[in-house]
């Protein structure tokens, strides 16, 4: 059956607990795209045969492959999108500088996306609160009391 590799990608993400970011599965993605290419080429050839060779009985087969192509596309897009949601969460929970371990889990394009997101967020934050701007990633929850107690060790 087609789309098995695509399902592996989805399962890998689903297994990661609490929205953690697993390593970017470059190899898996490449295999999915190769399968899509093969499906597309087989369909192209069968469509020609159906039109010129009068093989209209190939139409269900063409539809079968087309469904598989759509499924592979869905899995790929969902995989990439969910990873971006996790990367976005990193900016809010971890901060602006990510540890190396995390950076190695991201593809070059994802890193670029993270940098662009950081920049958009920073620009926005600077535009708030008058001259100095306002860091909205701090103090996300309203305070429960008027004062806080802080322990300092010397």
């Amino acid at each position, binding site marked *: 059956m087609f789309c098995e590799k695509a*399902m592996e990608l989805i399962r890998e993400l689903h297994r990661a607990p609490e929205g953690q970011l697993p390593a970017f599965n470059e190899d898996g993605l490449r295999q999915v795209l190769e399968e899509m290419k093969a499906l597309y080429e087989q369909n192209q050839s069968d469509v020609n045969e159906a039109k010129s060779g009068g093989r209209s009985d190939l139409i269900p087969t063409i539809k*079968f492959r087309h469904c598989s192509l759509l499924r592979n596309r869905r899995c790929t897009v*969902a995989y990439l999108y*969910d990873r971006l949601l996790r990367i976005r969460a990193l900016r809010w*929970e971890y901060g602006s500088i990510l540890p190396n371990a995390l950076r190695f889990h991201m593809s070059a394009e994802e890193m670029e996306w993270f940098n662009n997101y950081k920049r958009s967020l920073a620009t926005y934050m600077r535009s708030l609160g008058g001259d100095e701007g306002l860091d909205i990633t701090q103090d996300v929850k309203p305070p429960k009391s008027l004062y806080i107690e802080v322990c300092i060790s010397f």
Partner: protein
Amino acid sequence: MSEAYFRVESGALGPEENFLSLDDILMSHEKLPVRTETALPRLGAFFLERSAGAETDNAVPQGSKLELPLWLAKGLFDNKRRILSVELPKIYQEGWRTVFSADANVVDLHKMGPHFYGFGSQLLHFDSPENADISQSLLQTFIGRFRRIMDSSQNAYNEDTSALVGRLDEMERGLFQTGQKGLNDFQCWEKGQASQITASNLVQNYKKRKFTDMED
């Protein structure tokens, strides 16, 4: 991480799945029994037991009984049933529906295909004459089980919940988790921990993993 990560929710209980939802993709991977209404040439490699052999262009013959994933069955189905016709899986048929109406709580919905409600709702797309009964059964089953899920999720604090959760389907488990989170947040507030500054879960989890990386 859980606080800032907003995954795409499942839409399976509604009219359509959500395209980007990982839960819906996993749900639609589950299989259902179908019957081919026409031959499928050149696909014999996938269904070797059914394949009609090289002379027929390696086709899956008309009238074959196969198990296909939901996404594929949905894609190939049309109301004239030109390519395939769909059978209801056993748990959505009359026999099991009677069991559910007798006592919905005893059934292990995780074993019966972990996405019982989602898959059952999407099954309605295949225009079975039993659709009205199936939807009623899904609704009544949930109503029958809901009370126990709500009670147990609100009263199991700091204990092993595997026995409570073992027979729930995925949607019910999500509900249980939500209940548990509410309970834990409330307990946290009662203890006055809500106003303490703590490291986020994500940061703690990554710090733990870092030590094992160094040991390797």
